[in-house]
């Protein structure tokens, strides 16, 4: 039987973890209202009481002199993330569907090997890829362009999309495909009309992972663009100077995570409605 202390224990643990999770955000929030003197004076937490808050950090990320403009990079990040995620989801769910429903055999290569090929791209250290990508994009005239960045990002996201969707499709009874075909749908229509509409949870999880990894990619975006295309992480990292303006950095970090918090809300909604059941296995 559960002891009466159990709820106390439970909420204490939840609260402790919540503090740990929220701590850095709280710190970034309070730091974003400081200036050099408030930072140099040692750690303080409560505005007005411990330090005089200023809006310098926040002004700096919206084109204020002495900062970086995050709005343009925000738009670029959004375009790249949405485009690359969409392409990855489209190609990835098609491939995942094939791998889930049909048997492939080419010499010793089986379905599981093809899935492994996709997933193994995530094992590849980014350093291996970035220099060749540079020459590849240069050859295609795609350096410092959004299409170039989208192509590279697709290579990063496609494995995730395939990984999530294969598992998800494996969880959808094959009889649904069969029934759709019996009901007059050729395979592609079967996929589009019968399977995809039932894959919303899986697509959501895959889209979330794609968005998270796409939105937060710094490594490739940084090295394959020059001036035309700046993404949000680049704009934030541009503040990591030898005299780092902690306040601007904090404001930019908070700004960068905002759109993805909406994503977290959406995912949680699906979770709570039970829609994600079977989305991950």
């Amino acid at each position: 039987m559960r002891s009466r202390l159990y709820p106390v224990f439970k909420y204490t643990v939840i609260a402790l973890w919540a503090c740990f999770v929220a701590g850095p955000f709280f710190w970034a929030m309070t730091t974003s209202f400081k200036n050099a003197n408030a930072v140099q004076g040692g750690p303080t937490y409560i505005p007005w009481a411990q330090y005089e808050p200023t809006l310098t950090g926040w002004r700096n990320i919206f084109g204020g002199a002495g900062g970086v403009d995050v709005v343009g990079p925000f738009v670029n990040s959004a375009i790249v993330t949405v485009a690359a995620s969409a392409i990855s989801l489209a190609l990835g769910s098609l491939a995942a569907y094939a791998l889930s429903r049909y048997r492939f055999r080419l010499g010793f290569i089986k379905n599981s090997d093809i899935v492994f090929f996709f997933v193994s791209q995530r094992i590849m250290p980014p350093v291996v890829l970035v220099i060749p990508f540079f020459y590849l994009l240069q050859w295609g005239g795609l350096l410092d362009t959004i299409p170039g960045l989208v192509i590279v990002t697709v290579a990063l996201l496609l494995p995730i999309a395939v990984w999530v969707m294969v598992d998800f499709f494996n969880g959808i009874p094959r009889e649904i495909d069969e029934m759709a075909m019996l009901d007059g749908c050729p395979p592609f229509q079967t996929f589009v009309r019968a399977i995809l509409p039932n894959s919303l949870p899986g697509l959501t999880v895959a889209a979330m992972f794609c968005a998270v990894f796409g939105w937060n990619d710094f490594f490739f975006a940084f090295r394959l663009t020059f001036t035309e295309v700046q993404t949000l992480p680049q704009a934030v990292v541009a503040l990591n100077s030898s005299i780092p303006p902690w306040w601007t950095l904090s404001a930019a970090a908070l700004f960068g995570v905002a759109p993805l918090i909406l994503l977290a809300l959406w995912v949680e909604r699906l979770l709570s409605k039970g829609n994600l059941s079977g989305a991950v296995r």
Partner: protein
Amino acid sequence: MDGLRRHKSTFLLPGLLTLFLIIIFPLLFTIRVSFSGWNVSNPQMDFIGGANYTAVLHDSRFWASITRLVLLAGGTVLIQYVIGFGMALLVWREARGRRFWRVLFLVPMMTTPVVMAAIWQTIFHESLGPVNDLLEMLGLTGIPWLTESGPALAALMTVEIWQWTPFMFLLLLAGLLSLPKEPFMAAAIDGAGTWRTFRKVTFPLMAPVSVAAVVIRLIEASKLSDSVYVLTSGGPGSSTETPGYYLYIQGLRDQQTGYGGAMSLTYLVLMIVTLTVVAALLTRAFKLKGDS
């Protein structure tokens, strides 16, 4: 059936070929460059045989970083799994404000690692950051977070745990929410206690999700380098250097492209072998039927 056979390639190939085309050139390039002396001042594709590979074998800094990674990745992923599972269990069913907790617990995953690592650096700052300040308020002495190897590793692991436990949490929570109800009712009827229910019902049912989550986290954790870069730059000395960061130093920052290529490929082969073995062992440990 014939109709199906004809279609299957049409589904698979767009994705497979796209990835293949994007990946194949870099891979071939890296293989070729690993046999060249390409470096910052001679960016040429000459041929120097296996000299780079011999050098990799004798690079003690590289091998030390591999050993360190095994501990770092293994340790953090294990802790992430335990905490992620624990938190998922706590906010799984009846918990006040569980929807709020769930969102909150997801958020760290959404942040940009390089950016958050910069924030963490300010948090661990030994005189201007809050961690030591709080420790001192509690009457403890500050810890040299980024200047001694033990604490620096702990700081690094803390950041990794903060950033990626949500990933485990999400996978495991989704897994829990999709469990069938019957086995739990059966356990309740049998009068099994909380712990027994967990051990006999929840945990075995969660085994497939667990294996997938752990393996995918291991894959991602093996690339650990962003937070090392920002937080400690591999220091003090080289005591927090990971292969990802060392590869970055050699291959990108110092532009030892040839040597970096050889090291990357050695690392890639090692990782693929290790992760395959680990995945197989985990699968067996959870007594799953190997299936995909």
